[in-house]
């Protein structure tokens, strides 16, 4: 065994003990999450809760269920915005939709759906292209509470201005306000948009594949994981995708250096829209 006096090593040791404890006590394995973002979120949580040290946080998270619920949400949520990267959704509409239109039935997995922004953006395009009824969407996140929130399709009305601009930049032609009603500062998306969606808790770190899909959205989810966990999740994605199926990553994510790199071609260069061309 080696010992240390270096404060950087001690911070890292404390963080490791916290993650180990949370895994053993609650069964959520955050040990292969990207440490820099995790550290920021833990510091913010400690401030909010008035907890002085990481080990003090561990002690309370082991014993207090409600504090653990709040911590899990703080550490794992990754709220995005509707039609984030409009050119990606434009490419989806113009390049992918004509192909999947020929399929009799389309299964789409929105992995790490968080509060649902990506899901509803996709559903709106499928609806406008007349494909939504032929699709089965699976929206999953590791946190059940977040999945329930996604299912409601409720967003702050203040976010609708940005969503509208992004929708238009993504090739949307209708008044975006057709898709929601407003009540008490909340925008409630039309329930018809999630009519063909199954919402479920699924943990990319520990759960297995549960179906075979023609398309998987996993954009800006794996940025919160370290390289080894990214490889594991990409294996799960690869095994869940049918031949000639599509995988969508975030704008600054890539298949490069992944275990299955040679099985994919970049279907729309620059948009991180990959197609599986080999098993």
């Amino acid at each position: 065994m080696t010992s240390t006096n270096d404060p950087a090593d001690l911070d890292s040791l404390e963080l490791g003990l916290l993650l180990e404890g949370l895994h053993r006590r609650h069964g959520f394995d955050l040990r292969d999450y990207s440490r820099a973002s995790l550290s920021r979120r833990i510091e913010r949580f400690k401030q909010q809760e008035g907890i002085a040290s990481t080990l003090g946080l561990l002690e309370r998270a082991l014993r207090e269920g409600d504090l653990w619920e709040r911590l899990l949400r703080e550490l794992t949520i990754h709220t995005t915005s509707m039609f984030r990267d409009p050119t990606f959704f434009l490419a989806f509409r113009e390049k992918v939709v004509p192909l999947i239109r020929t399929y009799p039935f389309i299964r789409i997995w929105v992995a790490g759906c968080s509060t649902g922004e990506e899901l509803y953006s996709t559903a709106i395009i499928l609806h406008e292209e007349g494909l939504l009824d032929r699709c089965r969407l699976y929206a999953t996140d590791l946190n059940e509470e977040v999945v329930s929130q996604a299912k409601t399709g409720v967003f702050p009305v203040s976010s609708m201005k940005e969503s509208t601009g992004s929708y238009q930049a993504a090739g949307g032609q209708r008044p975006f306000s057709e898709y929601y009603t407003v009540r008490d500062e909340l925008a409630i998306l039309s329930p018809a948009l999630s009519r063909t969606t199954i919402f479920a808790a699924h943990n990319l770190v520990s759960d297995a594949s549960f179906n075979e899909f023609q398309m998987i959205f996993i954009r800006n989810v794996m940025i919160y994981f370290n390289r080894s966990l990214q490889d594991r999740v990409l294996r799960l994605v690869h095994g869940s995708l049918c031949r000639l199926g599509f995988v969508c990553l975030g704008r600054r994510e890539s298949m490069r250096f992944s275990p299955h790199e040679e099985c994919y071609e970049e279907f729309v260069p620059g948009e991180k829209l990959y197609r599986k061309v080999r098993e």
Partner: protein
Amino acid sequence: MASLVVIGCSLGGLDALRVLLAAMPAEFPWPIAIVQHRGKNDDRLLVPLLQEVCALPVGEVEDKQPIALGHIFVAPADYHLLVEPAGFALSIDPPVSYSRPSIDVLFESAAASRRTGAVGVILTGTGEDGAAGAAAIKRRGGLVLVQDPSTATAGAMPGAAIAAAPVDRVLQLEAIAPALAELAREGRLPEALRDDPGPK
């Protein structure tokens, strides 16, 4: 601790970066990471505009990219850029100091992972992003250089850094590249500038 230069700028930053990077010697050994505030869908022009004046290779960061020596890394639009021991990480966490990418996020993660090896540079800009980050670098024993607010296009941001942290030097824009080159030639922080990291 291996050295890393982190640079933050906002309004007027493009012009300032072009002056600074044009004067960086081709043999500058340390990696440089840059946060320039910009629009969320604005991802085409910044890197070419910097590369055209700079002898070192410039690129926009991809998630988990290794931090190669002698390279210049630019934070992508609408992502936070963070430093980890193994490489860069990105996040889409909410804006910090009204900004994503945020200078504070880059600087604080650089301070945590590089400690005395972190060298922060705050250039022109409005707002206060970077002030908390500069303070974090100083707490961990790194070095902070700031563009002179009185001659910066926008003096608020460098001024806020000076108010928040015991910065090491306040310099004219043209003097920053030579100061970085001199630090790198010495291979470490000069004795006179090295602070005791002290208790955390």
